[in-house]
């Protein structure tokens, strides 16, 4: 993907809390062992994180509490300063920016959504959404006008003059989302935005979020501790543990080929047919000519087409978005996905 422009680029980023962290890091020569630092009273937040996020891509950083995922996000938004390493936002070095440049960057290019919503309690829905615009120096009239558009976008029309405390959790987070989008940022940070919500509302907000992303197509860094959420939303997932990125890959690859034992534990209970797309089990079109009449899309989730594919004795051709045949799917593969994990027979795969 080198032809695509990377919007966020992290280059061996470290974040270590505690006194003398910098000195210890210099002595460690890039080889950070958490236990050693702990003995010296330091806590390793992020340990040698390097990755890129491309334009319009959604990277979900997933990890349990204390894994450093939020710290990583805070480093990239520079709410905290990274101890070492470089972070580039659209090619510009974030770590060396002055306060003034940073404020400019945040005012125009970044938006962030917080776990506990972080709305200003003394401002109404409308004023909260208009806040980043007013801070920027826009006139009240323009800000309010724009804020009204955002209220419509997130579906809160009619509640403009409510105070945050008068709204439900889901509605509050809609305000948070609207506020983060008010300045039309290119980069969108979401720090566990749906964790504080009830499961049903969470599902609804995820759908809403996917809808918004379909319209807006932002570059997104999304932090969550919920593996299912990560699978549902992500283009790529980075799984973190103790500050280290254990694996960074597409959801399908993570489920199919967990890189470490830790990642495997997450993937174990994931119903693959609900996650994997046909694309991940299709094979290149071989010599065979005897296709089924059935056609499936490469982006279809396996579960939704499994019955039809299995009912068909022949191989089923797979189409891409332009209706070209890009591969075939065999029922044996689908069976493996559906039942492979639970088979008591010795697998020879």
């Amino acid at each position, binding site marked *: 993907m080198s032809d695509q422009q990377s919007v966020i680029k992290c280059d061996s980023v470290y974040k270590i809390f505690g006194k003398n962290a910098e000195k210890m890091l210099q002595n460690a020569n890039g080889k950070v062992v958490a236990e050693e630092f702990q003995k010296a009273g330091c806590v390793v937040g992020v340990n040698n994180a390097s990755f890129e996020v491309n334009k319009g891509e959604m990277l979900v950083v997933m990890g349990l509490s204390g894994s450093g995922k939020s710290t990583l996000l805070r480093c990239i938004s520079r709410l905290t300063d990274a101890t070492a390493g470089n972070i580039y936002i659209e090619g510009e070095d974030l770590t060396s920016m002055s306060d003034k440049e940073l404020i400019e960057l945040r005012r125009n290019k970044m938006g962030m959504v*917080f776990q506990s*919503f*972080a709305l*200003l309690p*003394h*401002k109404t829905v409308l004023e909260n959404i208009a806040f980043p615009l007013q801070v920027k120096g826009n006139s*009240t009239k323009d800000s309010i006008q724009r804020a009204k558009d955002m209220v419509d976008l997130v579906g809160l029309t009619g509640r403009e003059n409510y105070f945050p405390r008068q709204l439900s959790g889901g509605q509050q987070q809609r305000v948070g989302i609207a506020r983060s989008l008010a300045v039309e940022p290119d980069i969108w940070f979401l720090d566990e935005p749906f964790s504080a919500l009830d499961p049903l509302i969470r599902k609804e907000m995820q759908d809403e979020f996917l809808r918004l992303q379909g319209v807006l197509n932002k570059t997104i860094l999304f932090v969550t501790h919920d593996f299912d959420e990560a699978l549902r939303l992500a283009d790529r997932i980075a799984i973190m543990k103790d500050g280290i990125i254990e694996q960074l890959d597409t959801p399908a690859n993570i489920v199919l080929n967990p890189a470490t034992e830790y990642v495997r534990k997450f993937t174990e209970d994931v119903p693959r047919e609900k996650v994997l797309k046909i694309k991940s089990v299709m094979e290149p079109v071989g010599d065979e000519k005897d296709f089924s009449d059935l056609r499936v899309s490469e982006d279809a989730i396996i579960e939704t087409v499994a019955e039809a594919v299995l009912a068909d004795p022949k191989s089923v051709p797979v189409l891409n978005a332009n209706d070209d045949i890009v591969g075939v799917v065999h029922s044996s593969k689908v069976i493996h996905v559906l039942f492979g994990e639970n088979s008591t027979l010795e697998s020879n795969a």
Partner: protein
Amino acid sequence: MSFINYLSERPKLTQLGIVLIVFFILMSMTGLYHDLIVERHLFAKSVVKGEIQSSVGFAESMSMILNWQLPPQLVRIPELTFYHPVINTSATYVLIALLVTAGLLYKSFAESVNKSQWLRVNWFQIISKGFVGIIVGLLFIPTLYNWFFGEVTRSTFWEIPMMLQDFSQYLIFEFWQTPVYDPEIEDYEDYGRVRLFTRAIGATLLFLINLVRELLIGGFETVVSLANVFSDQSGWDWLNENKDKWYSSVPAIPWTVLTAGAFILGYKLQGVGLSILAGFGCIYLAVFGQWEPAMQTLSFVLVAAPVSVLFGVIWGVLAYKSRTVERVITPLLLVAQTFPHFAYLVPIIVFFGIGDHAGAVATIIFATPPMIRLTLLGLKRVSPEVLDAGRMSGCHNYQLMFKVLIPTARRDILIGVNQVIMQCLAMAVIASFIGAMGLGFNLLLALNQLRVGQALELGVCIVLIAVVLDKLSLAWANKQTDYFADLSFVERNKTALLFVAVFFAALLFAWFGNWMFADTAKGINYFYLIPHNKGITTEPFWQAGVDYMVSNWRADIKIFNKWLLVEVLMPMKASYLAMPAIATFVLTMGVGYIIGGIRSAIVVGSFMLFIALTPWWERALITMYMLTFAVIVSVFIGTIVGAICVQNKRATKFILLVCDTFQTFPSFIYLIPVIMLFGVTDTSVLIAVIVYAVIPPTRYTVEGLRNVPESLLDAADMSGATKLQRMFKIEFPLAFPHIMLGVNQCVVFALFMVIIGAFIGTEDLGQEIMQQLFSGGNIGSGLMLGFCVAFIGLAVDHLIQTWATKRRKLLGID
């Protein structure tokens, strides 16, 4: 053996037992000196006369102890001498001071990474440790040397007040002088810059107060005369020249205008409820003939309160921004909490003189600390995510503070504003001691004449002003803008226009009033101003009530009073005075150790040591005796009343309202009826103290019991507990830490009132402060006495807070 087992399972109980046994052993060892120390002055007098030694040598002490007799220095800490670092500077001690400082700083310097930056980063540490070094090197070591070998003595602790007094005099009159032209003697004279500075502050405050005051009750003439402040006499000259012009005699605003304004403002800010409250508040003031003093008080509050709020927010923000400021300010705030008001007044008289401005300064000093504390608390409670949200919205520091942090911390800051307004009005009476005009001054007069009815009416005026100002400021802060309204000029400004209309209508009214009331008695224009003593009064009613009580209950009360004094109070006081100093230390430090370990013991011990080193130890014991009695009774009554009231929702609401009202009511008022019934005795003081100090335990009991989680109560019910079992096994244990905070507040309130009790006549620390105040004021004594009182409060505060924090952690409450 089972008893031993029982004790070994309860180490704290054993420790307490040991402390108590040692305490009583020491109590029984006063022997020779017992009769002397029970009479307050006698011990010190005998020492001065040379009848007894203030301390004896080591060998003799040991033999005295073996004969079951405490040596005198353990009975009463003698007038200890210490090395006077200013007068006698010896190179050895300076060297010791430097070495100690260097030793304290060495570790920090050795461990720092960036040696060149070290000085800049650690300046506070350097100053604080340098201070410790100076104390150790120049005070402790030479003092110890002196106690053992007796050579370098220059001063005693009893002389510290005089030293402070000299220092303040030097600061005011001689330090950093500058020549100032004095028109009286037509020559330049040297003035201390400090005095010029305090005078300038005083003059500014006075100008502001007068400006507001004259607008409200003085009129154009006096407003113009204020120009005097800026240039000599020009205001009067200008007035004289323009005497016959119409504008030279424009009167002040009639009361009707202000009342109508209050109605409108209340409506505009919140609605009908507030409008009625504000409006009828004003009508009450006017109808009861208290308009003039009320406006004097108001003008005073309108200047002092905003200044206090401003200072409070500024220092709160600074403390939030800088850890150093916070560390310096925190102990000061703690002391300010328990420092008696009267003790503030002494230095203020010296630096600022007497008058409205001095009263304003006292009020500002008194009202600012709670504002600082609440601002800091509020800012600290802002969730870090909101702070991050502000940053990510692209706020720079200024926007972050004023658009995100302060508004989000608004709740606490508004509580602070409420506190400031309440404190300002509470100070209205106390400030009148040093010349502030208004309701407080009249109240003091009424008290001196024992006119209960009038004092009560004045008290209600003060409460009304407090409540109305508080609600108005709250409503103003909560006001929101409506962005959808697209209104015409008239609609947008209808309130302002209405006010203008009402203004002229009221003026017209007042003008008509000139004729309407012209032929009635004395030609008072009731539409312009109802003068003092010309309004309605309910005084005869109250007076009759008091007379009835005095004539019908007096005999019974006298019997009760006599019993209380003879059987309870006097023995209690005697036993407090009979405590040898060492026993007091064992008891307080022992309890400190049991509650908070060695650290608490040292903290409490040093507070006690400070008091014991002053000449007022016996007075402090009397304060402590009154405090103990009042607190025990208040807590007893408060918890029972609270526990009963919390059973019923309506009773709960009612009792909280009663608490609020009693708290704002000027505490002085409680004094009159009790004096009439109980005469000038300790009983009067204690009853007044209890009436005031019972508020916090009641309130905290109600809150504590109400906040016990519902699920626990259900669990108790489902376990088959009876109502009483539930109360004593579940509700009280869980509410106990909160109730203890109520006890803590009770101690602060009681201490405050015990000191005010000096007004009736006590012989404790308060009386001494009172004397300092009326005898013109020795700053040193005033401050030291203030600290004595504050340290009693702080010692109790420390113990209760430590205990409550531990207990809450144990119970897992917040």
